[in-house]
């Protein structure tokens, strides 16, 4: 039964094959047909007629950027959860669609609202904590 369903994955395989062929073909064609590059110390420099680069490009980033990245991830993921919730809530609020629960009850508007309320208040609390802790201060 699982094997039978594998037919529906055929388009993905086709798309993947086309993408691979196109990418490989373009690179090969550019290599074969394109003008041959000259090599030399000046030609291979990062900026041929510009300034000579100073220092390594593999420098350490300031640790503050990591905090920014973590905060971004946190509040970005939040939106991922909000979006499907909003769709379901809209269905429940506008059309009265309910989800039957295991214990015999139903997940109606109130249930969805309480669930998201708990989730969201935890996130707001997290924001408050970050603020108090000074994570938003650049200095």
């Amino acid at each position, binding site marked *: *039964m*699982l094997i039978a369903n594998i037919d529906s994955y055929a388009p993905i395989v086709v798309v993947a094959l086309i993408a691979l062929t196109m990418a490989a073909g373009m690179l090969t064609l550019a290599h074969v047909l394109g003008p041959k590059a000259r090599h030399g110390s000046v030609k291979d420099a990062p900026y041929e007629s510009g300034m000579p680069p100073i220092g390594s490009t593999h420098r350490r980033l300031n640790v503050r950027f990591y905090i920014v990245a973590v905060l971004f991830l946190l509040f970005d993921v939040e939106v991922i959860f909000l979006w499907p919730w909003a769709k379901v809530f809209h269905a429940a609020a506008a059309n009265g669609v309910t989800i*039957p*629960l*295991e*214990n*015999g*009850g139903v*997940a109606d508007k109130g*249930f969805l609202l309480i669930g998201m309320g708990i989730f969201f208040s*935890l996130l707001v*609390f997290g924001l*408050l*904590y970050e603020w*108090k*802790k000074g994570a938003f201060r650049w200095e």
Partner: protein
Amino acid sequence: MNFEQLSMLAPEFTMLVGGCLALLVGATSASQRAQLVSPLAFITIVAALLMTLSLGTPESAQVIPGLWLSSLTFYVRCVALVVGAIIVLVNWHQPTASERGEYMALILFSLLGVLLTASSNDLIVLFFSIELVSIPTYVLIGLSREDSRASESAVKYFFLGALSAAILAYGMSFLYGAAGTTLLQTSGDGASIAAWASHGVMSGTAIVGLLLILAGLAFKVAAVPLHVYVGDVYEGAASPITGLLGFVPKLAGFVALIQIFSACQWDVPDAAYWAIWAMAAATMTVGNVVALLQTNVKRMLAYSSVAHTGYMLVALLVGPMAGHGPMHNGVAALLFYIAVYGAMNLGLFAVLSAFARRGKPIETLDDLAGLATVSPLIGLATAVCSFSLMGLPPTAGFVGKLYVFSSAFSLGAEHAFQKPLIILAVIGVVNSAIGAAYYLRIVASVYIRESDESPTPVAGHPVRWGIALCSIPLLVLFVWPVGLLDTARQASVPTNAPVHSVKVVEASGITSAPNTTPPVLLNEMPFAAASRD
């Protein structure tokens, strides 16, 4: 869902709110306010405990999808919160003032994870609960002291813990593939792992899944061969946090194992049975033998914790419905033993954190020399905890070991694994004797050994209270173990699942509450029926 059902989760909500408050109070810059964090954490746990007691043993039922309250929930809530309150007492002054909020909040969140593990009714909820237990402990090790060894052990524990979580999740995916649902049990005849397991023999997929789950949880409970981290991690963390590490992840791991096995009707396939058998034998032996070779007390106790996992695995293998006689219930013995283990292990680590020698925390047996002359009462408490770990009367450790091993010996001849289990119990008894050697070295160091420089007390009153609260119950439980053991017995039959456990309920004379809620299918997957064969 109504509010009456939600109020059954009051202890969990209390822990959540208390943890958040501790974070917020700790984040305020005023250092006076940081002094409020430890009392706040303590009050939160006591409040959650009082709520648990006033709610009583919940009717075995699902409150919200994925959470199922039962007598197991009640028992684990009580044990985790009582020991959790002592953990907070022992850690009272440990963190620096600027980090106290995070520190206490992480302890509360980790305990919350234990509570949720005991009430989860879904593989996914179970997985997240175990991660909620584990992730705070990674951070706590690093926060616990300013030492490169603490950072090292935090990183080690984190990477190995992440690996074990991956193995656990992978195993759960196999079990889901075989059973077609992630629900552990349902009130009616809906799709659940319990209903699936009661129908017939397990497929190869299910056995692979169970073995992987076993491997993932073996890391949490520190069973051989996934025990290699304990020495370094327990040594690197500050003593008060090591006390937590020896108990909280172990409790969560064993509760998760009980949950999964009871969903599988304790009908463990032979491959998994022999795997646990070998694991238990190796865990007891390796733990005790390696502990014999240590001079560092923390490493010694780390390997002793491995050995105790082995004893508990014996009881797990016996299961709840084997044999005859008053002590036939292996799971009740396991639940009783782990509660006692939590107290005696934490007591010794509290003693270690209560003293310093030459300005450094106590680490080796030499550091402990002369402790009894400095503080006779704490010396006595050390002796009580050590004797209890050893399994000598008059302590609860003796009662615990008695229950664990007699559950194996009371197996009837009709049990397929009667002989292997009796051999295992004999290995366990021999190991207890080996273990006595190194626990006696601790007691000898405290009482007999002379020292040029005795340890000096550094702890405040909360730590002293913590030591007292660990050691006195060990003596009380020796005289009167019935209260705890009866609760453990009730907790060992948490399911109202159809087949075997009903038999046990009748045999032990406990009537489970009838379930009135009608079955509604939610998690039934399209290929559930197909993958059964």
